């Protein structure tokens, strides 16, 4: 097993059974190995199985065939049934935050720590406040309930909760969806900062082309049930595959990239 590898996916097939006894093919023979310290953007058309792939990496769903290895540990039945092992290793940010609505912000972030058996309240308070500051919130926000938070704040709190156990792998599902450009930019800066400080491996599903451009070191493209590209953005942009041409070279995407080239020189 290659120690450089944070995630290794081998010969992965996913089929969903439909109501009529047939099945729908989602993933066809996907092979992917993600190195430590990479920020990978997972892109593809809506409904092509990006989130499914992410859920399979977390162990929420099992692939029909093939295997996934996370930080040198194979995701199999026993591991999925005893998720403590993976929970320590990867922090997950769900698309809508998935905060526990009955708890306030503080308890939401402290939840994984308490679950782990850390009972020293002093340590919990300090760690939670530190993560709150890290994601740009203040102690005054700690007593709010999730229903009282804005979309951007929910994402921040969810990120703080994902980071509280100091994972070495972060899985993000559309981290900037639904954020205004300022919040979105702050989020990108925050992730870039964290990545620099803590050297996480990050896998994110995103539709945001500027996030890909500004943050991701690698881009993985899913299309026609397959992984058609896994490379740096520049290399992916140069590929002749029709889906990539359509996805990255449509007028809007071109504008984003050209504008940014202009901006960044």
């Amino acid at each position: 097993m290659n120690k450089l590898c944070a995630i290794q996916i081998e010969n992965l097939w996913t089929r969903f059974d439909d109501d009529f006894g047939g099945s729908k093919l989602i993933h066809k023979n996907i092979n992917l190995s993600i190195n430590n310290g990479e920020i990978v953007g997972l892109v593809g058309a809506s409904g092509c199985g990006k989130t499914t792939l992410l859920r399979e990496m977390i162990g929420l769903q099992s692939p029909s065939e093939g295997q996934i290895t996370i930080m040198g540990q194979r995701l199999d039945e026993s591991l999925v049934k005893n998720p403590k092992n993976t929970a320590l290793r990867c922090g997950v940010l769900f698309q809508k935050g998935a905060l526990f609505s009955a708890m306030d912000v503080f308890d939401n972030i402290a939840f994984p720590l308490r679950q782990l058996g850390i009972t020293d309240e002093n340590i919990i308070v300090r760690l939670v406040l530190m993560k709150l500051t890290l994601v740009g919130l203040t102690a005054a926000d700690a007593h709010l309930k999730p229903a009282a938070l804005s979309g951007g704040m929910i994402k921040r709190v969810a990120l703080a909760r994902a980071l509280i156990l100091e994972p070495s792998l972060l899985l993000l599902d559309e981290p900037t969806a639904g954020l205004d450009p300022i919040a979105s930019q702050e989020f990108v800066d925050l992730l870039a900062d964290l990545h620099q400080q803590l050297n996480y491996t990050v896998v994110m599903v995103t539709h945001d082309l500027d996030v890909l451009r500004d943050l991701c070191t690698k881009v993985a493209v899913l299309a026609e049930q397959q992984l058609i590209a896994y490379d740096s953005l520049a290399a992916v942009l140069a590929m002749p595959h029709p889906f990539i041409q359509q996805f990255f070279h449509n007028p809007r995407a071109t504008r984003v990239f050209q504008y940014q080239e202009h901006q960044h020189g």
Partner: protein
Amino acid sequence: MAEPDAQDQTPQLLIQTEDHTTVIRLSGDWTLRQLQANPALGKQLKQLPKTAKNSHWDTSAIQVLDSFAALLIWQAWQEQFPANLTSTPEQTKLFTRWQQQVIPAPEIPPPFFQHLRSEGKRFYTACRLEATVLLVLLGQLLLDTAYLSTHPRSIPWAEISDTIYDAGVKALGITALVGFLIGIVLSYLSALQLKMFGAEIYIINILGLSVIRELGPLLAAILVAGRSGSAMTAQIGIMRVTEELDALSALGISHSMRLVLPKVAALIVVMPLLSVWTNAAAMFGGILSAQSILDISYRQFLLKMPDTVPLANLYISLGKSAVFGLLIALLACHFGFKIKPNTESLGNETTNSVVAAITVVIMVDAIFAILFMNVGMP
């Protein structure tokens, strides 16, 4: 920072004496994961004497240091940098972050009596608000009914028929089963008593009156409150969570017209029918039981019933059931609209809805019993 290919290494703490000074060397991976796996180390760190911060600390051999471990070390230092520290710049940055952290003072809870007063006031306001909201809902319902009576084209037939199917047709099985069993039990227990007095024939009076007038409507109402009332509350609650209620408002569709009225109308129709059905099932159970214990044949039972149980009882039963239906649907909707978008509130209000509906049904039943005390007795 860690070498990317560094293997997981157990954290270690070594205390050595070199040239008359104590050197505390830390090495390996100092992370939350490792410290959880080696709880002895955290204990050892905590139990270091207070003077330990005067020794020479060397953290430079630590491969990975995360903020959790940094906090533990920082606390072992009594929250001060040791005079003699060898560490990498990244590690110093982590420790500095803990040094700079400002913990806000915890809020002081108000004195007991003040707390009690504010709680009391809150309870009073909540009760008043509840009553007002319920009254507004009822008023809106009346307005809607008046509107629909002049605009019969706008009557939401589809929703009404949907609810009739869900709350009525699907409840036929359970109400029949419960009614049947209660009929058997009631008949059996009364038969034993009546036999002692040789008054077997009065089983028809007892069963007929108690089931048709009281038990049938009440049983059906309690079952529907538990079955459909809770479902209606949860449905409206989820619609709040998924912002469907807001979508309806934005489209200019009135909540009461679209959600409350069909439910209320459907239950007003369904409850009397269900109550007749439950009556029938309970009577059937009672007749079976009477036949086997008291030798009163079903023919005798049915022939004698119209004489002992005047028809007025059936009308009371039907009227009562319609009122129960109205109350159950109204309370279910009321508690549904009260749900806030969080899981706790959803559970609480659904429970409240069922409890309130059953309590109110029994209370109203008592009122009916008093009002119609002299009606329908043989």
